[in-house]
């Protein structure tokens, strides 16, 4: 029989530490996305226009990242790389792991977007006398971004949710904050249920924000 009294009071008393953790999760994810996108652009470019060996290197990187868990990647960066003389704080390890992870997924998404632009449209642009920069901007970049925007947005949310595992090396974010609060209050269920709700709210808000951004960027003024 149920003989348990739920006590959410202890959790809400420390709600500000959870909010701080949520803010750190958002900051960590946003930074990872910026870094990861930079990696992705470089990789997508190398794979499409670079020399053969660079393309091959990118493929190995992408397959390695996409076929191993984020947690194992994190352990590798945090525990294994120091053996090779590179040492990171938990936060740095988390950022590096997440950025590398996103870079692999995003480079594939970007490549798919650019490859979806029909060759004939680029030729048409050239025939109309557009300069290469204009061709890139209006014919390749914007339509490609429009194609891949939903996929990138959902990858962003996946990273936001995946970031929970970096608590395993005590990087400072929401799940770590939850772990600390849990060990202080012994209210494991209440703490994790509330934190689950915070992630739900964050993910939903981000999905909404991306949808609004998509409309503002690509569908304004169109029927």
């Amino acid at each position: 029989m149920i003989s348990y009294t739920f006590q959410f009071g202890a959790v809400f008393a420390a709600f500000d530490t959870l909010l701080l953790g949520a803010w750190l999760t958002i900051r960590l994810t946003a930074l990872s996305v910026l870094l990861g996108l930079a990696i992705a652009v470089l990789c997508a470019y190398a794979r499409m226009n670079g020399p053969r060996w660079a393309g091959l290197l990118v493929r190995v990187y992408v397959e390695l990242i996409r076929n191993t868990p984020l947690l194992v990647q994190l352990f590798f960066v945090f525990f294994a790389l120091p053996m090779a003389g590179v040492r990171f704080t938990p936060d740095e390890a988390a950022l590096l792991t997440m950025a590398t992870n996103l870079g692999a997924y995003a480079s594939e998404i970007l490549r798919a977007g650019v490859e979806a632009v029909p060759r004939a449209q680029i030729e048409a642009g050239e025939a109309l006398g557009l300069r290469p920069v204009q061709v890139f901007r209006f014919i390749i970049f914007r339509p490609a971004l429009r194609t891949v925007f939903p996929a990138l947005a959902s990858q962003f949310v996946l990273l936001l949710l995946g970031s929970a595992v970096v608590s395993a090396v005590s990087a400072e974010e929401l799940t770590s904050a939850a772990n600390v609060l849990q060990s202080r209050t012994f209210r494991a269920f209440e703490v994790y249920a509330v934190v689950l709700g915070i992630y739900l709210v964050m993910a939903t808000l981000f999905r909404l924000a991306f949808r609004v951004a998509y409309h503002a960027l690509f569908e304004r003024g169109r029927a």
Partner: protein
Amino acid sequence: MRPFGPTELFFIIAALRWTAALSLGALLLGGIGGVLVAVARVQPARWLRWIAIGFIELFQDTPLLLQLFVAFFGLGIIGINVDAWTAAMIALSLHTAAFLGEIWRGSLEAIPATQWEASRALSLTWVQTLRLVIMPQAARISVAPTVGFLVQLIKGTSVTALIGFLEITRAGQLVSNVTLQPFTVYSVVAGLYVLLCWPLSFASQRLESRLSISTRRTEPRAA
């Protein structure tokens, strides 16, 4: 401190069966749940559709790790004594049900409405139409993304290491702690994941490109 020898290597390899057992178990239970969720999403009763939507949103917009924590700590409260294995199975199965449900819903809805209308004209019932007309066609579309999700599931089982369940990531942690050779250990662990996941990723991509060619031939669509 112990050297990293055959015994240690075998310990990690032996833990593979738990990664495999978790993945297969969650695929089976989550697959059954996924069918229920997908059918609930396309059937006519609105309230049932909303429950299915809520279920999918809840599991797709929260971290797997937190789902695992809530299952692990929450079920203990209502008097069911759960070990790490049970908690992992429950969380992963529900997680899988939500993702497969969403994938399969998409496949069911991708079948043109004319198929429903034609079946109605032939006086098939709703259940007959779904079972004999819609599902066989939807199954073909859903194979590639389903195999793709399987990769995500196998990688996902790694987070059960954080509640102490002994699969390969946890085995890697333990071996790394006694041998102090994280570089070797986590390379082996990552290699095993690649061995499990890469063939599936490859198959998924192959199936996808083959399907997109065959569907393009039969029904050209203006994108």
